[in-house]
């Protein structure tokens, strides 16, 4: 018979107030297999743990049941204590008397009786506990970073500086993300490109960063420490090894009037080219949809112009596979386009623009060379109305969240406009102004006090063209909802930040979660803000929710340090509470019939097929095998197995039957009891 010790914790008053702890200990002594039972005020304290350790040694315990708080709280603490006394930590069992008993009951007698039942069930289980050893998983010390905005760049550089090789995958032809499009950045008004492009170049040339630009993650397999990632390198139709980035090709391209994506449709581009002059890598891409050669086979001017013969119209997509141990998702965001706002001049008036379009107007490298000119006729607007919260904080439109950055960038826009055109009249229509952040409120004050930006607390209803200008209709919410009509030459909408359109698809590939809006989910919003619930995957930047650059960079560095921390270990240790398929010596081999129902239900793709062969190599049968690195111990396969060939370590059938039996106070003794 097993020698089990029961330790009942008072948890100060938390348990003792409603449960008679001494009574529970006394009742435990009567349970089969219990060799000792004591109660104590705080078992998690040092003297409490010492008590457990001493009992294990002195009484020679073969297992312990700690009747205390939730195992989520202190299972690790007590298992460590047991281990210190020479007991296998998995022979230590937690009975939850706090969350599941004392906290939810008031009647002391009934609670005490329930506590005894809980302990009884755990004692019964504990008799079938087996010593387990953590699963050791080898570790590939390379990281994948998905997304090459400022988040991805920062994370990749930090990881690489930590001595680890990084594969950086960027979907578009160049690194940079949204930050490359910005003019000047709040709260310091430093030029965005000037601070970004050196970082882009560093990431593009770092010895330990392998940049896969114009590429996408196709498939992710494996688990923490051992991911296999297939990456699709999209055909550029330009051989990057030959191309020198000289620009002869795009100068010759006859398609000169295409709308520039980088300039948010306000500037022009050619069908071959780099998105912007500082692009990294500085190698052009052919836009197949708009290329005459692809459409009619009657052009090829870029090919003739290229001095190094780098243009290759027959290039195909290319799939490569990379082994990595950790992944950082840094895929950023999108902003809503103005077409989402039919009330604002039908969503297609040239002089109603988004904040991101305003950035391009204000940018020295933008389509107007940094002058604020309205798109319809190139005039300098005398009055600009900025409408904040366009699409944000609108539960009626299905978006309840605040996009967080718009109050600040709108103040910036109003200031930039005023700095560039002194007589201009910037008016901001806002629900309120949110300026949490270092130096942020000071920045906003500068806009209102020094630059004379007019802020009106209001809700904007409608924008319509009138007399060559635009009229903005709004309700003044400060002065009792009075109706206002403001004339403007340019209207700028601070449109909501939204997740990337394919964010959910990528999340499914990576096996990570997202919230109802589509932002990626962290494990804990406060205490584990950069880790995903799937081990080995981390988050950086605006893919997790609206963020400005300082926050994005901070999170990216945090994600990098998490990756480096993970890689600091020699190998990974994982909880041994995993499924196991029955195996036996020949001629039985295994009672697994090879139906692979388990494979169908396993959410973690942890079921493998194992061929059993005789000495001569003839196939005897194919059975299931659990990959302990992938298995998360959910037990779904156990339930699905018709032959009862799978069991879950730590939660074996016999343990569960024993616990149920004890609860039913019957004396069911499963076969094979020790």
């Amino acid at each position, binding site marked *: 018979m097993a020698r089990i010790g029961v330790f009942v914790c008072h948890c100060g008053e938390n348990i003792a107030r409603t449960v008679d702890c001494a009574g529970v200990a006394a009742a435990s002594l009567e349970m089969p297999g219990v060799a000792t039972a004591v109660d104590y005020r705080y078992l998690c304290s040092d003297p409490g743990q010492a008590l457990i350790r001493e009992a294990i040694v002195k009484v020679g315990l073969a297992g312990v049941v700690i009747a205390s708080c939730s195992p989520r709280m202190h299972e690790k603490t007590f298992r460590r204590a047991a281990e210190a006394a020479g007991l296998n930590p998995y022979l230590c069992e937690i009975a939850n008397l706090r969350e599941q008993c004392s906290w939810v009951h008031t009647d002391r007698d009934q609670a005490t009786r329930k506590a005894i039942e809980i302990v009884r069930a755990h004692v019964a289980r504990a008799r079938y506990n087996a010593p387990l050893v953590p699963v050791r998983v080898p570790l590939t010390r390379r990281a994948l970073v998905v997304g090459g905005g400022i988040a991805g760049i920062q994370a990749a550089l930090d990881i690489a500086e930590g001595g680890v090789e990084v594969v950086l995958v960027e979907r578009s032809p160049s690194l940079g993300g949204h930050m490359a499009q910005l003019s000047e950045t709040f709260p310091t008004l430093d030029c965005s490109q000037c601070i970004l492009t050196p970082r882009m170049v560093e990431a593009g040339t770092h010895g330990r960063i392998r940049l896969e630009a114009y590429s996408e993650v196709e498939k992710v397999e494996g688990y923490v420490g051992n991911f296999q990632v297939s990456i699709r390198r999209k055909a550029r139709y330009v051989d990057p090894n030959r191309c020198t980035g000289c620009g002869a090709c795009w100068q010759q391209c006859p398609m000169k009037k295409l709308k520039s994506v980088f300039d948010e449709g306000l500037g022009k581009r050619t069908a071959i080219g780099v998105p912007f002059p500082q692009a990294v890598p500085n190698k052009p891409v052919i836009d197949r949809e708009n290329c005459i050669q692809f459409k009619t086979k009657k052009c090829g001017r870029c090919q003739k112009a290229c001095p190094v013969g780098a243009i290759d119209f027959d290039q195909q997509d290319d799939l490569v596979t990379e082994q990595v141990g950790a992944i950082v998702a840094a895929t950023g965001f999108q902003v809503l386009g103005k077409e989402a706002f*039919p*009330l604002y*001049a*039908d969503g297609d008036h040239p002089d109603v623009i988004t904040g991101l379009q305003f950035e391009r107007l204000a940018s020295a490298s933008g389509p107007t060379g940094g002058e604020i000119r309205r798109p319809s006729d190139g005039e300098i607007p005398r009055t600009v109305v900025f409408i904040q919260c366009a699409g944000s904080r609108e539960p009626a439109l299905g978006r309840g969240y605040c996009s967080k950055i718009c109050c600040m960038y709108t103040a910036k826009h109003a200031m930039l406009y005023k700095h560039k055109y002194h007589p201009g009249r910037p008016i901001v229509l806002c629900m309120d102004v949110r300026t949490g952040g270092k130096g942020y409120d000071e920045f906003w004050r500068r806009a209102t006090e020094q630059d004379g930006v007019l802020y009106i607390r209001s809700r904007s*209803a*409608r*924008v*319509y*063209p*009138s*007399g060559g200008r635009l*009229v903005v*209709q709004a309700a003044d919410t400060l002065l009792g909802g009075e109706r206002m009509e403001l004339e403007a030459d340019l209207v700028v909408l601070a449109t909501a930040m939204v997740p990337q359109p394919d964010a959910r698809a990528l999340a499914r590939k990576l096996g990570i979660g997202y919230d109802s809006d589509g932002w990626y989910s962290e494990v804990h919003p406060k205490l584990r803000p950069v880790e995903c619930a799937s081990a080995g995957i981390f988050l950086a930047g605006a893919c997790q929710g609206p963020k400005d650059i300082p926050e994005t960079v901070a999170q990216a560095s945090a994600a990098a340090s998490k990756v480096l921390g993970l890689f600091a270990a020699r190998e990974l240790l994982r909880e041994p509470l995993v499924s196991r398929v029955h195996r036996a010596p020949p001629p039985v081999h295994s009672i697994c019939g090879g139906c692979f129902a388990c494979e169908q239900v396993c959410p973690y793709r942890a079921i493998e097929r194992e061929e059993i062969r005789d000495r001569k190599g003839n196939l005897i049968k194919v059975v299931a095998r659990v990959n302990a690195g992938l298995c998360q111990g959910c037990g779904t396969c156990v339930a699905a197995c018709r032959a009862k060939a799978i069991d879950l370590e730590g939660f074996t059938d016999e343990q569960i039957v024993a616990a149920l039996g004890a609860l039913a106070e019957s004396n069911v003794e499963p076969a094979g009891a020790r």
Partner: protein
Amino acid sequence: MDTIGYFPGCSLQGSAFDYDRSVRALAQQLSIVLREIPDWVCCGASSAHAVDREVALCLAADTLAKARRAGLDEVLVPCAMCFQRLAAASQELTEHRSLAGEIAGALGGPADLDLTRVKAVNPVEWLVRLLPGTLGTRARRPLTGLRVACYYGCLLVRPPKVTRVEEPEAPRQMEGILKALGATTVRWGRATECCGASFSLSRKSVVLRQGLRIWELAVEAGANVLCVACPMCHANLDMRQSEFLSEGQEALPVLYLTQLAGLAAGLGPEQLGLGDHFVSVDRLLSTLGPVGRPVTDT
């Protein structure tokens, strides 16, 4: 031949008889039978719903019950106020099915009378539906030359849970119909502005101010005709135009959607009641071409 119930309401028997005439003529032209609900009663608009919710519900339900007894599933309701009342009642009865049963009983049954089976339809919805087949193929006179400002007002589009309109603040249904019939539609900012109807008698100044605002922007947007689908809007914009316009401001004809669709379907001005407007439509009509080939083939 297709049949649909018809609820003219009081306006269409009085001030808006031209609206009534155009709906009937258009239906006939499109070979659709309008079955007037036998012995229909007042929809309860303007006062009942503000005074007594139950009376308001019962008035509308009575008409729905009569439609149902006549075996009808749908009732065409040209007046936007009547439409609003009937649609609101069906919505409420559908939400509270037991109430529907009770009211059906109180209105004299029969026992299996299901009030939630009758739906009120306004002319905009009706024509959107008819456009692909019936209306589109029978239109013989393209509305080329007409630059229409579509004016929805309030009750046709709001509240969306009653009116079933997707973008209640920026509706485009009338534009869709008229464009398909060959007209140009203008973009303007007052399509869902209030015409001031509730103040029609009590504070005329409000109505005149609203009317002017609507006229101004429609003209500025380049419209030569205003399209409405509500007798109140029509009265305030057509009848009062001479009051709110000053000297030198040119009057803008105000036509019902069904009148414009009727013209496209080849009907003459008389058949559509166009001779009885306060703002003359003669100039406008002179811009229209002859009845000819089907519009949608061009």
